[in-house]
C-alpha cells in the first residue's frame, strides 16, 4: 500500500540512528573524557576503564550497528571529506596511544612518554568532539546543524568521564586519585552548571533557527521527548546531582558515596541527553 505523504513533512524524524548509535556516541564521549581526566588525576583504573569503554563499548556498538560489519574497515577510507572517517581514525589512534601510555609506565617521564601522553590526550579530546561535528554536518537536520553541538558533546564528554571516575572510586577508593574528593565535586558542579547554561542557549537558538529546529525544540519541551529531556536530562541528570553535590560541599565533609550518587545520576543524564538529541533529529520541511 502506498503511503499518503503530506508536505511539509511534518515532524519527519530520522529513524535510523537509535540505541546502538546512542551507546556508541555516549561510551565514546564518556570513555575519552575519563581518560583525559584520569591522566591528570594519575588514576590508573580510570585509564584502563576508559580504553575498555572506548575500544570494546564504542567500537563494538559501531560494528554491531553496521549493515555490513565485515566491511567496517572501509569506514576510515575518506578522512578528506567524511567526519565518520576522521572520527574513527581518531578512535583508533586514541586506543593505540592510550594503550602504549598505559603499558609503558617506565617511559612516562621521558620525552617519548610525554609525547605519547600528549597524543593520547589530543586523540581523547578528538573522540569527545568529533561526534558533534559529525552530526553538525547535516544541514538536513537543523537541530543538529549548529556549532553548539560539538561544544555540548565535548562538555558532556568531560561530565560523563568525571561521572565514571566518581562512580568507579566506590571500588578503587578515594586514595586512588591525586586530588581530594572535594575538588572533584567542585569541578563536577561547575561542569553541570555549564551544561545547564549551554542547554538553555542551545534551545533558545534552535527555537528561532528554522521550522525543523523549532519542531525539534518543542519535542524536547512539550512533545514526546519532554519526559526524557525535562525529567531525565534536566532533573535527574543536572538538578539532582547539583543538589547532592551542594549538600556534600556545603556540609564541609565530602562523602564518597554522595559524590558517586551524583556521578551516577549525571551519567544517566548524559545518556538521556544524547538520546534526546538523536530522537529530535527532525528534517527541515522541503517547501
Amino acid at each position: 500500500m502506498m503511503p499518503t505523504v503530506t508536505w511539509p513533512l511534518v515532524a519527519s524524524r530520522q529513524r535510523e540512528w537509535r540505541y546502538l548509535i546512542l551507546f556508541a556516541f555516549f561510551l565514546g564521549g564518556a570513555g575519552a573524557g575519563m581518560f583525559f581526566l584520569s591522566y591528570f588525576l594519575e588514576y590508573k583504573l580510570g585509564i584502563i576503564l576508559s580504553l575498555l569503554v572506548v575500544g570494546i563499548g564504542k567500537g563494538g556498538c559501531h560494528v554491531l550497528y553496521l549493515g555490513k560489519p565485515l566491511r567496517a574497515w572501509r569506514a576510515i577510507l575518506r578522512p578528506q571529506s567524511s567526519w565518520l572517517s576522521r572520527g574513527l581514525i581518531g578512535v583508533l589512534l586514541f586506543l593505540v596511544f592510550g594503550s602504549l601510555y598505559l603499558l609503558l609506565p617506565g617511559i612516562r617521564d621521558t620525552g617519548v612518554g610525554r609525547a605519547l601522553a600528549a597524543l593520547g590526550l589530543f586523540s581523547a579530546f578528538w573522540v569527545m568532539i568529533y561526534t558533534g561535528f559529525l552530526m553538525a554536518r547535516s544541514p538536513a537536520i537543523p537541530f543538529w546543524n549548529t556549532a553548539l553541538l560539538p561544544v555540548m558533546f565535548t562538555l558532556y564528554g568531560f561530565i560523563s568521564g568525571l561521572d565514571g571516575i566518581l562512580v568507579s572510586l566506590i571500588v578503587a577508593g578515594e586514595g586512588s586519585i591525586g586530588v581530594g574528593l572535594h575538588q572533584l565535586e567542585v569541578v563536577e558542579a561547575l561542569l553541570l552548571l555549564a551544561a545547564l547554561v549551554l542547554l538553555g542557549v542551545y534551545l533558545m537558538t534552535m527555537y528561532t533557527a528554522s521550522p525543523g529546529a523549532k519542531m525539534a525544540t518543542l519535542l524536547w519541551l512539550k512533545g514526546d521527548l519532554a519526559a526524557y529531556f525535562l525529567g531525565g536530562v534536566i532533573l535527574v541528570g543536572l538538578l539532582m546531582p547539583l543538589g547532592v553535590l551542594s549538600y556534600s560541599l556545603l556540609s564541609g565533609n565530602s562523602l564518597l558515596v554522595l559524590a558517586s550518587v551524583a556521578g551516577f545520576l549525571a551519567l544517566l543524564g548524559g545518556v538521556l541527553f544524547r538520546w534526546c538529541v538523536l530522537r529530535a533529529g527532525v528534517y527541515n520541511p522541503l517547501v
Partner: protein
Amino acid sequence: MRYGMVIDLKRCIGCRACVVACKAENGTTPGIFWREVLQKEYGEYPAVSRTYLPRPCMHCEKPLCMEVCPSGATQKRDNGIVWIDDAKCIGCRYCMMACPYEARYYLPKLTPYYPQGFTPYEKVAYQRHKIGTVQKCDFCWHRVEQGLNPACVDTCLTGATYFGDLDDPASEVSQLIASRHGFQLYPEAGTNPSVYYLPP
C-alpha cells in the same frame, strides 16, 4: 553533460503511476520508494486544492551524501548521476542523516509484498538489492545508458516529467527551467539539485 529532471507541478495529478513504474522497473521492496509523491492540501471546504510533488533523488551537483560517505560507496558519474556502489557500502546510514531530501533508504532485509511468499518477479528483481546497504533512485541508469528515459519519465500520464541534459541550453529541460522559472527544493542546503520543479 549533466543529466537532470524537470517536473511540471501544473501537470502532475498525483496518480502515482511514476511511483509504481519505479517499483516495477527497479523491484524495490515494501516500504522503499525511490520515487515518492508528496502531497499538500490548501484551504478549507469549499475552497480546497491539492498539489502533488514527486520526489526522486535530486542527484545534486554537490551531494552531501557523497561528502559524508566514509567508504566511498556513494559516487557521482561524469554525467551527474549519483549512485551507490553496494559492494562498498557498509550500511552506516550517515548519508541518510545528511540527505536534505530523505531520498535514501536502508535495506535491513528482503520482504515479499504478499504473505504467500516471494513472487517469481520478486525472486528475480530482488537479486540486485543487497541487504545491509543503502539504496536510492539512480535515474534508471540501466535504461539511460541504452538511450532510454528513466521509467518514471516514460510512464507519466500527463507528461509532467522531463529528462535531459541541464548543461545544454537548447535542451527541453533547460528551456523549461528558463521559461517557466523552474525552482529547486531546499536550495539553502547548497547542494544544487539536478531536479527542478515548474510552479503549479
